């Protein structure tokens, strides 16, 4: 595939693109409607739970997907190729993620158990102003580094001088002209990429502790932060594979994404499937073996007590057993359709895993799983938001698409 500039003008809107935007908008609207209906219904807490879980999941997907580009650039891995543009496009979701994070403040009474409990001194850490400011600063830093990385990369990609739309015009005014400027852009890209990776580990660990582990304020696990960021990279890679496969299939397999790329990223996905399961197992073993009631109550509730035990088994089978068995086969990684199915299944599995971790804290003494139609519709709504973000990013910057693909889908 020779690298060609995209044959459509950025900013224009061919038919297939328009229908994608419409579809995404419809999905998002469905989600919003379901959320609002839930809020106005008898159990607003369930609506907020759905919102919270999906916020965490889809933010993690975006953060993890962008990490792929930043990481491969920092370690100078050359095999990423056309996948890095697709990976960076997920940064389009970052502003939406930030808005959703701030929206959590509205639902705070339904969401944060530590607002209403006696924390025996932990209030210094778990209080609304401090938590939201530090997590907000964390998100801003992470997303800032991500956007800076993306913008430096775009400066190296954008060749056409026909800007359309404010963002692209702003970009076009800053394109490097000389060899020295190009070199400076490359160095900045490496710097921002490295900072993104560093911030990813720190900020996602913080989010894991602050937003997920704190739901059970009296439980601790030192690995929980790292577990959160490994999970984020796992789902991020899954989403990247889905996007790459869809773009590739849409162009009748005539993009620059070769079998080797699918094979390599499939292997990386497999590796992170193993790593996720390893981090899950490590926590489980230490807590199980020590048998200290303060630690085991969390795990027993989620793995042995109905109704959560069924969910735990489903999560384990969907997120580990099935991907492990399927991905051992070499050929399946290069079958885009199969990978779309597998990665979608894993993303759904991690969605359920979020429910498994957060559900018991938000629904004490639940007799049955707090999983209903509303939760599914809110998931679809967030998926619509993600598709909107990606479509908008590709429309504004079609250079992110792999060469050989004709239109921004």
């Amino acid at each position: 595939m020779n690298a060609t500039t995209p044959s459509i003008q950025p900013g224009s809107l061919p038919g297939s693109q328009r229908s994608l935007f419409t579809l995404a908008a419809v999905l998002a609207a469905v989600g919003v409607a379901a959320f609002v209906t839930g809020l106005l219904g008898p159990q607003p807490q369930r609506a907020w739970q759905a919102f919270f879980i999906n916020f965490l999941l889809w933010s993690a997907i975006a953060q993890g997907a962008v990490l792929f580009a930043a990481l491969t650039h920092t370690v100078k891995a050359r095999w990423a190729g056309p996948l890095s543009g697709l990976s960076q496009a997920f940064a389009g979701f970052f502003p939406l993620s930030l808005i959703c994070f701030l929206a959590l403040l509205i639902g705070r009474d339904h969401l944060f158990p530590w607002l209403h409990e006696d924390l025996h001194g932990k209030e210094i850490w778990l209080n609304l102003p401090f938590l939201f400011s530090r997590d907000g600063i964390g998100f801003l830093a992470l997303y800032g580094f991500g956007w800076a990385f993306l913008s430096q990369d775009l400066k190296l990609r954008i060749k056409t001088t026909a800007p359309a739309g404010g963002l692209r015009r702003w970009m076009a005014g800053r394109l490097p002209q000389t060899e020295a400027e190009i070199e400076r852009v490359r160095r900045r890209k490496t710097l921002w990429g490295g900072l993104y990776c560093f911030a990813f580990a720190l900020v996602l660990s913080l989010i894991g502790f602050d937003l997920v582990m704190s739901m059970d304020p009296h439980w601790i696990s030192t690995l929980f932060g790292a577990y959160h960021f490994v999970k984020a990279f796992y789902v991020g890679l899954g989403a990247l594979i889905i996007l790459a496969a869809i773009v590739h299939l849409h162009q009748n397999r005539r993009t620059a994404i070769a079998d080797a790329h699918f094979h390599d990223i499939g292997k990386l996905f497999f590796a992170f499937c193993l790593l996720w399961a390893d981090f899950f197992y490590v926590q489980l073993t230490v807590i199980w073996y020590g048998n200290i009631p303060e630690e085991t109550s969390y795990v027993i509730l989620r793995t042995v007590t109905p109704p959560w035990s069924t969910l735990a088994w489903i999560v384990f089978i969907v997120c580990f057993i099935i991907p492990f068995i399927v991905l051992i086969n070499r050929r399946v990684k290069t079958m885009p359709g199969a990978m779309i199915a597998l990665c979608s299944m894993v993303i759904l599995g991690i969605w359920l895993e979020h429910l498994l971790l957060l559900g018991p804290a938000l629904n004490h003494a639940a007799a049955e799983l707090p999983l209903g139609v509303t939760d599914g519709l809110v998931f679809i709504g967030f998926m619509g938001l993600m598709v909107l973000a990606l479509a908008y990013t590709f429309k504004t910057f079609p250079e992110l698409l792999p060469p050989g693909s004709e239109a921004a889908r």
Partner: protein
Amino acid sequence: MTNLTFAQIDQTVLNTLERPRPRYWLFVALMLCGVLLGAAAWTYQIFTGIGVGGQNIPVAWGTYLINFVFWVGIAHSGTLISAILHLFRAGWRNPIARAAETMTVFAVCCAGLFPFIHLGRVWQVYYMLPIPTQRLLWPNFLSPLMFDVVAISTYLTVSSLFWYTGLVPDLAVVRDRSTGLRYKIFRVLSLGWTGTHHQWLNYSRGYLFFAALATPLVISVHSVVSWDFALALVPGWHTTIFAPYFVAGAIHSGLAMVLTLMIPLRRIFRYEAIITLNVLENVAKTMVLTGLIVGLAYGTEYFIAWYSHNAVEWESFRWRALGEYAYGLYFMIICNVLLPSLFLFKKVRRSIPWLFALSLVVNFGMWWERFVIIVGGVAHDFAPHAWGFYAPRLVEYCVMVGSFSLFFFLFLLFCKHLPSVSMTEMKETAHHAG
């Protein structure tokens, strides 16, 4: 590196197998003395009892465990370089893969001695083997120490087989350039390897599988070693982060040992064209990553110790920073996290004296990290009246000297009698670059 021809690669490496000068034998003899010193101390301990060491209540695990974890850690980055980087197709690993894998095998040997040494009555190891005793009593596989037995034996076996498999084509090269006794020995060792298409076809597959299997093994073995501590209830030990934290720390210390070994090696054997500064720089860059992971783990442990609001946990960490062994913590933080971050600067990364000095600093710091964790955990756990201290005694110092001497003794012997750089992999690199 990319300009080397096959003949140059062969010649450079085969030159290292020439008859060694007397100075070499002097070093070997010196190391052998160290080994004998350690052996003598161990023998004395076997006859007198484990009490000759400094470990006692409350600190029942001292330098024997510290050295055990230290050597297993060193072994891990050898497998990282030879197996994991092979899977990632990182070509810069080719010049150092052989020496790194050898380092692994010898480090696991040294590590494996320590459980025996620490037993005191060495013959009691019989009870850890999966053979029923006369009362039909089997070992209890619920015990982390039994996990260790299984994991370390597996690691030793797999590393040795991986090492030997990687050596076979190179042994054939040496055979084809030797005469007399050396020819006969290498003829047998190289298994009649002739490099036919059929042999290479299966060899490449087999080597790939080796690399793919060694990777989860690396992670699992040091996780198992970390569980010797994490599965206990001691504050400072019982924490879920130990498994990845130990694995990252192991790779950190192992990479430092790789630098410590490679820098003199490339100088003495004139490997500068093969083990280039780029290779060493890449090792240093990887150390930046592992150092940051280790730093994140230190920070997380402290944060969660505070967050838990558990009085015992917090006291353990408060004492770690302000108590009698606090200097260990500061060695640990400065040597493992702060100083290696100097590798962020290109000038430091590409300076041989800095690379060597920082590698020694990290080795020192990682030894102290194990001290802080192992001794610091049990010296100051639950009940204040049970708090105590620990100081190693002469026997332990001698055994430690013995283990370091054994490692370098074996490595020195390896360097002059077996090819310390993989000629086959270097040729592959040169071939693909050309």
